Structures are given as C-alpha cells and as structure tokens.
C-alpha cells in the first residue's frame, strides 16, 4: 500500500519545498519508489529545488484535466533512482484542483509508488487543503518562531477535521513535527524557542530537527536536494528524519552549540 505523506506548515517560507525534496530523495535513496508532487498551483518551485525545471513539459493540472497522461508528466530524477517529480502548473487557475481530480491521480500513482510526497503550498486555501486531504502521514514543518508555531497548530486542527481520514472517521492522520532552521546557539542565549518548547506546545512526535545551515541555500542554488550533501549538517539531519520515518529510532543530532575554542570563549565570536 502506498503511503501518502503531506509536507505542510500553514506559514510560508519555513522550508516545505526544501523538506519535500530532501525527504523524497532520501526515501528513494533507501530504495523506495517515490514520487513528489508540487501542489503550489501557479507558483511552482519544487522543480527548481529538484533541479529539473528545464525538463517540465506537462504538469499536475494537465493530468487532472486529461490533457496528458501520468507517464508524460512524471519527470524521472537524473541523480537518484526510484525518484519521480510531478510539477505544478504555472497557470493561475486556483480551481484546477478538485477532490475528484486529485484523488484519481493519487489512486493511479498509488499503483506504482511506495511513497507519494505532497508538497503543500502555504496558507489554508484550496491547494493546501487538497495537499493534506488524502494524507496518511503529515510532516508539519515548523520554524522555532511564534507565527510559524501558531500556524502549525492551525494546520493540525485542519488535519484533524478536514482530512479524508477525519471526514470518514478512519484512523487519524499520523502527525509529525519537523523543526527547521534551528540555531542551538540562539537557544542557549534564550533568543529562540527550544525543541522542547515547540514539542510541548504542539504536542506531536518529533521526526527531525534541521539546523540553520548554509548548505540549504547552496543546495537550492544548484538544484540539488540538500540531503545529497552528506557532508553538511542539514543533509545528515534530513537523513536521520527519513530513517525515523521508516521506523528507526535515532538520537537527535545538532541540538547543541558547536564547541568554541578557548579564545572564542574569552572574547566572544
């Protein structure tokens, strides 16, 4: 049975697309046949982060409207085996996504793929609601910052009332917290909410903590999901999150400040 995973947040700019790309790539690297879908109709960006923007011919909306079939629209990743991208359209028609249309595409994908990652747009409009509607698992991407935490809580409310699982009274969507852009140094100085603070407020299990990292911008600059960069802290933290998603128990890394040298301790950085 294919697992449908939505990467969502409510708030924009917290790292949904970065995380979708990294997690999809990570699952494929582990040998699971995975497709990642961009639900941000009109503002597609997943293709850029995945580095396949010049290979987009048909998109998600074309498939829903039966102007193209799935095999024409799916882009096979050049770097990672088992990985496919379904890009969003650039047309502004918000009503392009319907429950019936999206449901049919997901049903067809579920026959071929083990994991279907839905990269949600920001907000709580149609695109975001469609991305979470069919989910089995939700990865709630959150920054340790007040507006992001509040919006994540709103999205948790939506998952519990507006998803297909909620409407049909099935087992609820499994919710996980992915904390991104975490700065242990700023937590130490009391300027940033800690992992424990956010966990306590949102009260859902933690699946990963991604440190604020220069590797993320470098990765997006070059169109390579950051998880490919296994030298980087962010890349390793995403790998850990993927392992946890697959059921492994791992200690959380990158939660404490890097050790400073003696001189830095005296004079500050």
């Amino acid at each position, binding site marked *: 049975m294919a697992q449908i995973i939505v990467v969502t947040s409510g708030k924009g700019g917290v790292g949904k697309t970065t995380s979708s790309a990294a997690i999809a790539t990570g699952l494929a690297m582990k040998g699971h046949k995975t497709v990642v879908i961009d639900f941000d109709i009109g503002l597609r960006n997943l293709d850029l982060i995945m580095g396949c923007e010049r290979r987009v011919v048909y998109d998600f909306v074309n498939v829903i409207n039966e102007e193209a079939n799935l095999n024409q629209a799916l882009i096979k990743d050049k770097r990672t085996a088992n990985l496919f991208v379904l890009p969003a359209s650039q047309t502004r028609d918000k009503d392009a996504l319907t429950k019936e249309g999206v449901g049919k595409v997901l049903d067809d994908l579920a026959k071929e793929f083990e994991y279907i990652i839905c990269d949600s747009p920001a907000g709580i409009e149609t695109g975001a609601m469609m991305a979470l509607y069919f989910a089995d698992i939700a990865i709630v991407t959150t920054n340790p*910052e*007040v507006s992001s*935490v*509040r919006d994540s*809580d*709103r999205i948790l*409310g939506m998952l*519990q*009332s507006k998803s297909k699982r909620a409407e049909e009274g099935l087992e609820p969507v499994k919710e996980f917290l992915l904390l991104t852009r975490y700065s242990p140094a700023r*937590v*130490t*100085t*009391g*300027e*940033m*909410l*800690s992992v424990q*603070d956010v966990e*306590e*407020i*949102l009260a859902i299990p933690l699946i990963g903590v991604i440190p604020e990292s220069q590797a993320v911008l470098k990765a997006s600059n070059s169109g390579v999901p950051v998880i490919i960069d296994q030298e980087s802290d962010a890349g390793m933290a995403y790998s850990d999150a993927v392992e946890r998603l697959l059921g492994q128990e791992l200690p959380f890394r990158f939660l404490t400040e890097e050790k400073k040298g003696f001189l*830095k*301790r*005296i*004079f*500050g*950085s």
Partner: protein
Amino acid sequence: MSLLDYFKTNKKPSTAVTAKERLQIIVAHQRGERDAPDYFPKMKQEIIEVIRKYVQVGPDQVSVQLEQNDENLSVLELNVTLPEKN
C-alpha cells in the same frame, strides 16, 4: 556567550520565554475554537448583539465560551460585565 558577556550585568528576561508563554495562551484559545461547531462564531456574534440592544457593553465585556466537560455534556458559558450604575 563569552566570558566578557558574563561580567556585563544587564541580564534581561529571555525573549524565548516570552514567546513560549504567548504561544501557550494563543494555542489554547485556538484549540478551544477548533472543537466548536461551525455555527458557533455566528451565534456568539448574535448573542452579543442582543445584549447590546439593552445594555451598552463593549465586545470585550462579553465572553461566550463553549466547554466540553465530558463526552455527553457541553456547557455554554456566557459572561457579561455590566457597566457600573451611576
């Protein structure tokens, strides 16, 4: 934090603590409304309007809250702070 910072004695309360306290309040409030039925915001508005037909009160002097006490019992709590008599 460097050793030099340690000697500077202007220790302000940490902003992360403030953030957490503010979030706990707003999230609790949000969750209260999450479980309420769809008609609740409109009903609340209409109740406030009816009261204001008779007594001059501001919106912050009326609180309408729905509490789920257990599986079968919900309590609608209405609190009105009446203006002082002159």
